[in-house]
């Protein structure tokens, strides 16, 4: 195995695959996270707004079907469905795959955000409303800023699992140089080159994941620290 490790680390061809896969993994995760955040935020707002307005009841029902289906089925199934049937246009594979991860993440993020909003003391909304401030303003100025603090750790967690979930993107077929060729796919191609030795490339790829996750953890801590300002003073 050590021999294999050495071979990979010294081969510019293999390391090229890995760096390329690394770039793909980062890019796919980043875009999926952004889609997930936007989608999750919108869905959470619709669900929360349904508590206040009867006009949001039907959109909220649709949203809860979305979260139920997405959280209730394996992401691999969603990926295959999107790539091979719903969005099966020629040359559309990477886009469909990235969208899948974004949509998948959105369902989890929406529940995190919703939980964060619900965790803010009911009295905060009542205080705002009792002063005559409309629901929407109270939500934006009082509830969201407090909810964000509660939500950041959970969202960070979701980002980390999303990073690793993207490792199945190669299952829909990955070609070197496209946006479906990620770290895991690089590991596969190297393993084939080494005659089926999967362990060594997997370990190297694993280290890349670990470094990224650690960087994410630091980032989350930084954001959390900033948001906790009003608690400490």
């Amino acid at each position, binding site marked *: 195995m050590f021999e294999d490790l050495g071979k990979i680390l010294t081969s510019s061809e293999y390391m090229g695959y890995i760096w390329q896969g690394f770039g793909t993994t980062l890019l796919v995760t980043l875009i999926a996270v952004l889609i997930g955040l936007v989608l999750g935020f919108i869905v959470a707002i619709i669900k929360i707004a349904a508590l206040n307005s009867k006009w949001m009841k039907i959109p909220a029902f649709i949203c809860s079907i979305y979260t139920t289906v997405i959280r209730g089925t394996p992401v691999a199934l969603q990926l295959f469905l999107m790539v091979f049937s719903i969005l099966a246009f020629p040359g559309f594979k990477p886009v469909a795959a990235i969208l899948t991860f974004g949509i998948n993440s959105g369902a989890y993020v929406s529940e995190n955000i919703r939980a964060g909003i619900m965790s803010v003391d009911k009295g*905060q909304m009542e*205080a*705002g*409303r009792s*002063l*005559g401030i*409309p629901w929407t303003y109270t939500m934006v100025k*009082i509830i969201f800023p407090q909810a964000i603090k509660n939500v950041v750790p959970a969202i960070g967690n979701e980002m980390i699992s999303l990073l690793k979930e993207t490792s199945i993107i190669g299952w829909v077929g990955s070609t070197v140089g496209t946006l479906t060729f990620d770290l895991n796919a690089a590991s596969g191609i190297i393993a084939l080159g080494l005659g089926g030795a999967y362990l060594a490339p997997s370990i190297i790829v694993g280290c890349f994941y670990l470094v990224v996750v650690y960087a994410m953890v630091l980032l989350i801590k930084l954001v959390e620290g900033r948001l906790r300002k009003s608690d400490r*003073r």
Partner: protein
Amino acid sequence: MIAVKNLYKNFGKTNVLKAVSTTVEKGEKVVIIGPSGGGKSTLLRCMNLLETPTYGEVWVEDKLLTPVDPYLHPEIIRLSSTYKRMTEGGATDEEVIAEIKKNDLLRRFEGRDYASAIRTYQKQNTLDVNLARRKIGMVFQHFNLFNNKTVLDNLTLAPITLKLKSKAEAEEQAYALLKRIGLEDKAKVYPSTLSGGQKQRIAIVRALAMKPDYMLFDEPTSALDPEMVGEVLSLIKELAASGMTMVIVTHEMGFAREVASRVLFMADGVITEEGAPEELFENPKTERLKDFFSKVL
């Protein structure tokens, strides 16, 4: 004046308020006392619609805050198809209306005349609840200061957001209010660093920053350490002396007696007894109230 008419509030199958009616006139200091779970806080919270009554109406001045309750308007009942059907059977107007009220016979759809009468009445009399709340300050048991805002921002948020004052005007007013309670030095701190008594006094002046005509106090001292109760009560007394119309739910009997112009005793969702404080405290008439006093005094 805040008037509640025939108010019912059901939480699921529990009836928290049962046909409560009372009117708080300008300048009155109404104190509501009674055992826990008797509906005191619910009644208070219905007055600014933080709680939506199941039946009944809430009026502020000559404006309606709740939807119309048709049972309170015989002229609307007379337009309903149920009424028409029942009078065709030969019953008199009074009988039919009494029967409808008693047995809750009005349905959701009662014909076009009935629906348009309700719409018209609503249009003529309803006031947007957000506008009404500007004039009705509320103080909560757990203070409910905005945790993510400094004390100063707590005091200026509503006037600025609702565009009633410029930022400079609102801050000037906020400092004046803080000075009045001796907490000017706390303007820039966050609520989490304050004591309970300080929080509650700031919550009171936060409500005052809207220049309300009425103040509702929901057990303002119940969550305080004993040594802080005095400072909050004396601020409320000061406010009472300045002529503010107030409704106070409290367990502080001495304070109730001192500040009230009228005391309501609520138990089991009804106003069991009401009157001037001397009268009520010296000569309780009902067994329920005597029993209550024997436990708390």
